[in-house]
């Protein structure tokens, strides 16, 4: 990371953690970092106030991608919402599908067949790997190593090919329908998955040499965006951002869902809690994804039903009630709060995305005192997806 100037006389006075800035004094520059900027994660923007190269104030702005999903879902039947939910996090739709299905199943009292649970789990871990690959390209690109982005996007495409084979869709799968999944695995899928996992493993070895051992990357990422342990609960930080500071929490382990309680894995943590450590934690989690995919494929039942028959979904009334279901997505705790009033339509669906707090209070705090050149790297290291903020 760039060093802060030690002479603070030219910088604004800080009162209650906020700098006192008079833009009319012409000492400061206000710039918009995004929404059209290669260093921003999706359609959002940061309103930065600079003093020289140093950021003295930051405000996050979203709303460029607001499609009003939570409102739309109140006007659609339960089954009509199933193809809607995957659009809530574009690079990682499977978690939305799973959580929506899990919430509906809990309220309706539906038992999902065991084979469907294993297939869902495989789908989620493949999705995690694909999402991490997309993020890794962004993280490297933010510090100028844009070739890595081309490698990771290619390998993500190999995974998307598998999703296409498995579900019929590359991005939006609409696969985990309430009651189970839409189909079993195609013939020979396990071998083709193994071939892709091997390719990704080989790529990760190269990335370790090119990125994690790269002196420029280390010089810029070490110490950047330090998250103190005290901030974790106060800001609601979850996922790798939390684990990189040494806190061993993971929904997959703490509140197991699907078949995670039958899989062998450890929660990966770090200590330094900066951009480099967060990269390292996610890098290790990618290896963990590969391992989990292999475990699932080796142990999943090959036969049996993959879907529980549903009542006529066009007239499907879910008994009144409410629930909250959660899962560990690549960015942290993702959850769905569903309320049914017994009618054909949901009363309320509220989506808890980890980016909500990571992109707003956390980003706004960490940006202060950072060099403008490091903002993109910091932003990507928090791994935020705007659509899950805007819902």
């Amino acid at each position: 990371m760039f060093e802060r100037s030690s002479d603070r006389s030219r910088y604004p006075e800080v009162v209650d953690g906020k700098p006192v800035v008079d833009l009319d004094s012409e000492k400061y520059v206000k710039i918009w970092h995004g929404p059209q900027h290669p260093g921003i994660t999706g359609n959002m923007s940061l309103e930065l106030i600079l003093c020289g190269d140093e950021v003295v104030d930051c405000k996050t702005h979203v709303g460029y991608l607001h499609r009003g999903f939570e409102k739309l879902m109140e006007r659609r039947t339960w089954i009509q919402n199933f193809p809607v939910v995957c659009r809530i996090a574009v690079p990682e739709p499977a978690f939305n599908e799973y959580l929506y299905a899990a919430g509906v199943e809990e309220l309706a009292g539906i038992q999902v067949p065991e084979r469907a649970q294993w297939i869902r789990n495989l789908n989620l871990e493949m999705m995690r790997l694909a999402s991490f690959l997309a993020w890794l390209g962004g993280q490297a690109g933010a510090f100028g190593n844009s070739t890595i982005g081309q490698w990771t996007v290619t390998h993500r495409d190999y995974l998307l090919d598998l999703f296409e084979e498995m579900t019929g869709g590359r991005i939006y799968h609409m696969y985990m329908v309430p009651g189970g999944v839409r189909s079993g695995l195609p013939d020979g899928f396990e071998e083709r998955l193994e071939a892709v996992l091997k390719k990704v493993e080989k790529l990760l070895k190269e990335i370790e040499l090119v990125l994690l051992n790269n002196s420029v990357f280390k010089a810029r990422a070490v110490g950047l965006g330090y998250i103190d342990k005290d901030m974790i609960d106060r800001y609601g930080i979850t996922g790798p951002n939390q684990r990189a500071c040494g806190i061993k929490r993971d929904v997959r382990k703490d509140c197991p869902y699907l078949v995670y309680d039958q899989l062998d894995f450890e929660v990966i943590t770090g200590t330094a809690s900066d951009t480099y450590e967060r990269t390292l934690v996610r890098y290790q989690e990618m290896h963990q994804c590969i391992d989990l995919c292999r475990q699932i494929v080796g142990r999943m039942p090959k036969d049996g039903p993959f879907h529980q028959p549903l009542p006529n979904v066009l007239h499907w009334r879910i008994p009144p009630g409410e629930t909250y279901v959660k899962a560990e997505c690549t960015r942290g705790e993702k959850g769905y709060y569903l309320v049914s009033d017994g009618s054909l339509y949901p009363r309320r669906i509220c989506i808890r995305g980890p980016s909500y707090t990571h992109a707003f209070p956390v980003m706004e705090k960490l940006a202060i005192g950072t060099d403008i050149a490091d903002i993109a790297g910091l932003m990507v290291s928090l791994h935020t997806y705007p659509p899950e903020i805007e819902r």
Partner: protein
Amino acid sequence: MKELFERLQALFAVTDFHQQRADLGFLSIPKDHAEMLIRHLRDHEGFTHLVFFTAVDYIEDGVFRLVYMLHNYGTKDTLGVHVDISRENATMTSIHELWEQAGLYQRELKEMFGIDFPGSPRLDEDFLLEGWDEIPPMRREFDTRAYAEATFFPREGRTKSDPRTHMREQLYPDPDQE
């Protein structure tokens, strides 16, 4: 979680405890005691994680039900605290001092439901909507279809058909009429 509810019942006017799962429960509390209960849950019962904070509109009863979802990392329990407030005078005590992200949830609730949280920082700044002058859109009486029809218009020359009529006339014509 039943023991937790009994402990809370001795201290606060909590009611309507409902256990949805072994690790998920809901309870209700009157508006005036809610902030005290939430502070107590955070400081003394280990519910240090504010999972989310939202509202459900019960227009037929004239209330907004605020839902504070709290999680205890120690016991792995999640507790939803319901607070009913009147739709007419939709105001609630702010909890922005308890969690940093609470202010943002309150900013969203102000914009989407029109619920006021006096003292909450940046409450009146636009969150998702810019220059919105209609009623708050997440309220049940806001009709998305009527709004879309009044605000947007179809491209000139574009025709549209009712799916039911189209299916009957084009896809499955009645053979007796031909």
